[in-house]
């Protein structure tokens, strides 16, 4: 296990060499209310050189020659400069042989997916919990308020959880990567044979024979499987897919201080009666130091408004029902899950310009306003119909309205009640969410 990345180790060495500086930093941590008073040691993934297979996967990931248009690679939509999420604000991407076809769903980030469990429907397993961060945040502010009751056990519910894509229809990176390669609106290979033919023309084709035996070049299906496995291996091995270099990670470790605004945001994030974000977007490290992923891997029907910018949504009979279709085919009969989509990680979310499965929002402020006003002032969120009435949950068919979450705060309010979050709360939460962006340099601490 390499608990600390090479870069941080280097920084630490510098600090250790300058012992005085370290003592200053330690001293500061006790005085600074923004510091985590009970730092934890985070277990980051082992950070070694990429294997031959992962290096092959890296080339495939960035290779546009594998698409029908010759212009689209994995990296086109999963932009390495944007936390492997969409590069701009387009709600869903365009692709296909001539680049004119619009996709159905917003591009999820590929970061922090590697610990996703297989899709299952089972009892809700309580996350191992470590320190009560809400309590710590309160302590560090010196204020007294009700703390989130850690360990309150709800009756086990049968909940869908795990899996990749918005609907969990793939369990492995390998099968996930196969999707865009063959999707007509994405890289648009007509079939396995066409994709394999493109691979055989790639400059790295000899690597396949070396690693998987010469037979692989004669077997299109396996060639494709090996290629997508190589992409998977790149996603597993390359630290850029799970850097854990956010300010929040360093705060957890006692190496960075949160501002007052960020701490207020964290408190609201954890407040069961207010934003209650942590109810789904788990923000505590495991007891063994596994950094939090800000998702419980479970599924929710939130009732996000329909997005008129999507060509599929112009067909009024079309509904994207997530777990029960149309893209996922295996549990269509489980109508109690219609309208549910997987809870994404919130790491790097503030760098995105597209939110929710249909890309309905482009600004975090609007996302949080959706949570705040959906039930208390739905007219702020949904359009009006010809009859002048607000068409609440306009992207969920009437038969499945019962699936929409109206139980969990902040989605448990009634019209006319106060919103769960004020404008100031929303500003604070966004300030906190920005601490989840990777690329924070803890040496900024020294400059404070």
């Amino acid at each position, binding site marked *: *296990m390499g608990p600390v990345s090479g870069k941080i180790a280097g920084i630490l060495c510098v600090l250790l060499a300058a012992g005085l500086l370290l003592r200053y930093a330690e001293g500061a941590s006790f005085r600074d209310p923004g510091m985590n008073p009970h730092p934890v040691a985070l277990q980051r*993934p*082992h950070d070694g*050189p990429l*294997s*031959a*297979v*992962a290096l092959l996967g890296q080339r495939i990931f960035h290779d546009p020659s594998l698409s029908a248009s010759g212009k689209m690679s994995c990296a086109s939509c999963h932009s390495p400069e944007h936390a492997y999420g969409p590069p701009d604000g387009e709600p869903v991407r365009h692709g296909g042989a001539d680049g004119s076809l619009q996709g159905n769903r917003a591009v999820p980030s590929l970061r922090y*997916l*590697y*610990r*996703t*469990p*297989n899709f299952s429907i089972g009892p809700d397993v309580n996350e*191992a*919990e*470590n320190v009560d961060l809400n309590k710590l945040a309160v302590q560090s502010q010196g204020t007294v308020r009700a703390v989130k009751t850690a360990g309150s056990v709800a009756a086990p519910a049968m909940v869908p959880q795990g899996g*990749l894509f918005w609907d969990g229809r793939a*369990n*492995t*990176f*390998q*099968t996930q990567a196969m999707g865009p390669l063959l999707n007509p609106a994405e890289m648009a290979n007509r079939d396995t044979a066409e994709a394999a033919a493109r691979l055989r023309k790639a400059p790295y084709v000899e690597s396949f024979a*070396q*690693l*998987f*035996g010469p*037979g*692989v070049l004669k*077997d299109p*299906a*396996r060639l494709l*499987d*090996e290629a997508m*496995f190589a992409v*998977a*291996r790149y*996603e*597993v*091995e390359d630290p850029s897919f799970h850097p854990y270099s956010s300010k929040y990670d360093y705060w957890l470790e006692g190496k960075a201080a949160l501002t007052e605004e960020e701490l207020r945001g964290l408190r609201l994030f954890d407040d069961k009666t207010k934003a209650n974000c942590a109810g789904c977007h788990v923000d505590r490290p*495991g*007891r*063994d130091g*596994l950094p939090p992923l800000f998702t419980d891997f479970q599924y929710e029907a939130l009732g996000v408004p329909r997005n008129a910018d999507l060509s599929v949504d112009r067909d009024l009979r079309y509904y994207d029902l997530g777990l029960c279709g149309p893209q996922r085919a295996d549990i269509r009969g489980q109508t109690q899950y219609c309208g549910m989509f997987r809870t994404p990680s919130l790491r790097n979310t503030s760098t995105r310009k597209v939110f929710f499965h249909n890309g309905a929002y482009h600004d975090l402020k609007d996302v949080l306003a959706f949570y705040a006003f959906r039930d208390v002032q739905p007219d702020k969120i949904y359009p009006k119909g010809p009859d002048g009435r607000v068409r609440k949950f306009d992207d969920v068919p009437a038969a499945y309205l019962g699936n929409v979450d109206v139980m969990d705060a902040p989605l448990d309010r009634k019209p006319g009640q106060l919103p769960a979050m004020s404008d100031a709360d929303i500003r604070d939460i966004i300030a906190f969410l920005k601490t989840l962006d990777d690329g924070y340099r803890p040496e900024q601490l020294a400059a404070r």
Partner: protein
Amino acid sequence: MKKILCAAAAFAVTAGLAACNGGTDFSAQTPVDDLKTATPIKHLVVIYGENVSFDHYYGTYPTATNPVGEPQFTAKAGTPAIRGFTPALLNNNPNLTNAANGTGVSNPFRLDRSQAATADMNHDYTAEQLAYDNGAADLFPKFTGTAETGGTGAFGTTGLVMGYYDGNTVTALWNYSQHFAMSDNAYSDQYGPSTPGAINVIAGQTNGFVLGKSSFPGEFIDDGQGGLTLTGDIDPTGDPCSSTTDFGSFSGKNIGDLLNDQGVTWGWFEGGFSLSVMNSNGSTGCGRTTTSSVTNATKVDYIPHHQPFQYYASTANLKHLRPNSPNTIGIKGDQGNHQYDLTDFFAAVKAGNYPAVSFLKASGFQDAHAGYSDPLDEQTFVTEVINFLEQQPDWKSTAVLIVYDDSDGWYDHQFATVGNGSFDATVDQLTASGACGVKGTTAQADGVAGKGAVNGRCGPGARQPFLVVSPYAKANFVDHTLITQASVVRFIEDNWLGGKRLGGGSFDASSGSIDGMFDFAGGAKNPVLFLDTDLGTPVTTPSSDLPK
């Protein structure tokens, strides 16, 4: 060492613990080294791994691909040939040419070290019989290749069942084979998954199953004599970690009963068995888990249907009671009743109380079972155990057996002629529909009740690796004697019990002998081999890490 230390241990026991165990006098226990044995082996350690076929680990032995950056393996001159892949099997395999395999048609192909985490195969009693296709061994993709997925980084492909590792992944096992002895003709006693394999290695008999509760078919069958035979996985009745919907137990005897009769110390040591330990991730009790750094998947440590002694009233420790002390582990009367946590094994050996017979089962993530474990985590487990034992004074009288409970359904080309027939109209599909063997011609052993031949024990099943690591093991040697899991039972009986057999239709009576892998006359001359616990390559100084 033993005599003095054992006496000291016995003294400590009588002085300190007899009172709290209802007066059991542990000092009456004969020291292990004084027990009469037929061979110089005084300590047998069975590492019972999960779900590996012989070709899956040894198909191309001793030739490794050696890509740059991976642990390298080069065979010693004079390495004997094994029954692995021929050029024909590699390039024109019957699983490629049999179109019934559909899109799964494939030659065997190399799995890279980066592909240590793979999906799991189908390893049911009937599916494996169908894959062997009356000896043609040409329907693996069709019948056992229905893969389930592992973690996000797992590898899968339609013909995955044809994948094999080489010495760049299973490096430690290949190195042990170079220095010690192995069999290329070892099989599970019958087709099917883990629980039958676990039961056979201690009892040689899966008949005598007593149903507790069952929620789906395929776990057991009517034996044709009014009883039941276990053919699938099911949890032990009464174990608090067992499923609440699927559990059962066994009548009949196992090797533990015979060892108890003779006062021989023994234990089954399994990861996660102690319910009072809390792992570093905060998990405890039956839900104790470990996250593998190879698969990134989290798996429960203790898997009840891998613990065979829990199915028998005489040898169960259903409450998972902890041993009275490290000095009483394995001794009759200890409240653990021979069922312990893996860590108890190391504690006992360190305390000078090294049992005569020890079965070791890794925590889930290290047990080698595809889908949630993998050969690299398994390698860490195996090398840590053997490095530790090789540094003990009693290594000179130790034999470690590396044996597997089933094949997982992974391809293996070597079919064993049916030695024990079975003729259940539904589940037996090996030689014909409703048949494993030829009725009236193929031998068919009795059930535990002694009322005659029973169904559900079609075997030998799939071929698996079988290694002997011991100072008495022949060096760089491959034995071709047909052996099965029950050969382990037979060795224990022959060594400690004067050749007494379990009876009741157990395969111990008919199984082959593993003695061919030993050179007992030559003295304890085979030197130790320490291996790197990550890479599986030889080192001069081993790490002191132990499995948990």
